[in-house]
């Protein structure tokens, strides 16, 4: 596995450890989807697919495609025993009503007040927010999974988001290839760092000020 993949796997594994047994979880498209593969063996989580079911299972193999079951990315998937189908109004009632325990999703930018920008870049990428705004506003715990810096090496954890917001003040946890950061009322608290980095390196790669926890664990 190339180093980038390994770092990605590490942060995904770390997020998976945060999810308690029995949690109802919605995973965003892309890297967050992989979190489901790393849930510790002694726990069972239930995945929610915002287009209309709980019990989201693995991708459907070519010979087992059911034309009526796709995930939120439109890909053919399976439903696990114990799952339930419902319509969009119910699905988003589950989301907004605080019945989804955790949502894990990517970010373009996140800031020290827990603001999140992940759905558009004006003039460049305007795909629409889909269910992201509802998920971030409604889920009990919002976990951002992303690379610590962007393609050009610039920080993505900012004092203030510059891109249009997906939601205001809703992010609880930011987990990157470098750090595990909790969003608190007093600001961002660095609690853990990746095993191949230092607190200094994390601070340097972060625009927002970081409170450093008394004991920094490694992951």
């Amino acid at each position, binding site marked *: 596995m190339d180093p980038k993949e390994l770092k990605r796997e590490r942060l995904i594994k770390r997020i998976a450890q945060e999810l308690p047994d029995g949690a109802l979880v919605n995973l965003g498209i892309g890297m967050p989807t992989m979190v489901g593969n790393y849930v510790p063996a002694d726990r069972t989580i239930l995945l929610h697919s915002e287009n209309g079911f709980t019990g989201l299972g693995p991708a459907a193999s070519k010979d087992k495609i059911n*034309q*009526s079951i796709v995930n939120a990315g439109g890909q053919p998937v399976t439903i696990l025993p114990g799952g339930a189908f419902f319509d969009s109004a119910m*699905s988003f009632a589950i989301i907004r009503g605080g019945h989804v325990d955790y949502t894990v999703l990517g970010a373009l930018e996140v800031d020290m007040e827990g603001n999140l920008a992940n759905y558009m870049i004006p003039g460049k990428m305007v795909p629409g927010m889909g269910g992201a*705004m509802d998920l971030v506003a409604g889920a009990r715990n919002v976990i951002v999974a992303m690379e610590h810096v962007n393609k050009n090496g610039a920080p993505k954890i900012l004092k203030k988001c510059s891109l249009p917001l997906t939601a205001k*003040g809703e992010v609880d946890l930011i987990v990157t290839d470098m750090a595990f950061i909790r969003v608190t009322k007093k600001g961002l608290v660095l609690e853990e760092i990746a095993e191949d980095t230092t607190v200094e390196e994390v601070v340097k790669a972060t625009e927002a000020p970081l409170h450093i926890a008394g004991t920094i664990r490694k992951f």
Partner: protein
Amino acid sequence: MKPILTADKAVENINDGCTLMVSGFMGCGNAFTLIDALIRKGTKAINLITSDTAYPDVGVGRIICQNRAATLTASHIGTNPVSGQKMNSGELKVTLVPQGTLAERMRSKGAGLGGVLTPTGVGTAVEEGKQKLNIGGKDYLLELPLGANFAFIKAEVADKYGNAFLPGATKNMAVSMAMAADHVIVEAGQIVEPGELDPEKITIPGVFVSALVKAVLPASNVQVKP
């Protein structure tokens, strides 16, 4: 009993400038037969309301790609690049609505409500021009009801009273749309006699349904990305 029509007959009165809801999610659950008949009829300047615009030339995506829509209200257009191109060129006026808000705006229309109060979009561009209310210490946006002249719904089975069963994840926006639109056309894989569909397993009560059409195109909507 509801009229059972051919697809061409069912879309006969869907004219230029109408507002049309099409249920489905990334093509999953689109009414392919009705969409095909509407394209054939040549209706233009449609005000289209849909969850997303699927893929180019798949299901509801065809209404965009064949230049039949004047406005689009949707939550996501990223999987159909043509929607974005037309939005940028000004050819298509696009209103992006959070997915849950879209469902509730339609549901509230059909439920006789004056709108819904939602926390979704507070502090974002979505709140622009909307009334904000503080209820119990929390801010909510007032989102108004959304109706349409017509809705296209895809069902697996419908009985002659219009009661419809929609399997799996094809329910998505269909229930809200069936409630919200004036004329609801259900395209069903099977149309059965009253009593043959278990009343315990109805996704959409026939009370919302105006007409039935037998599906002739298969639901080959699901695409595996390479």
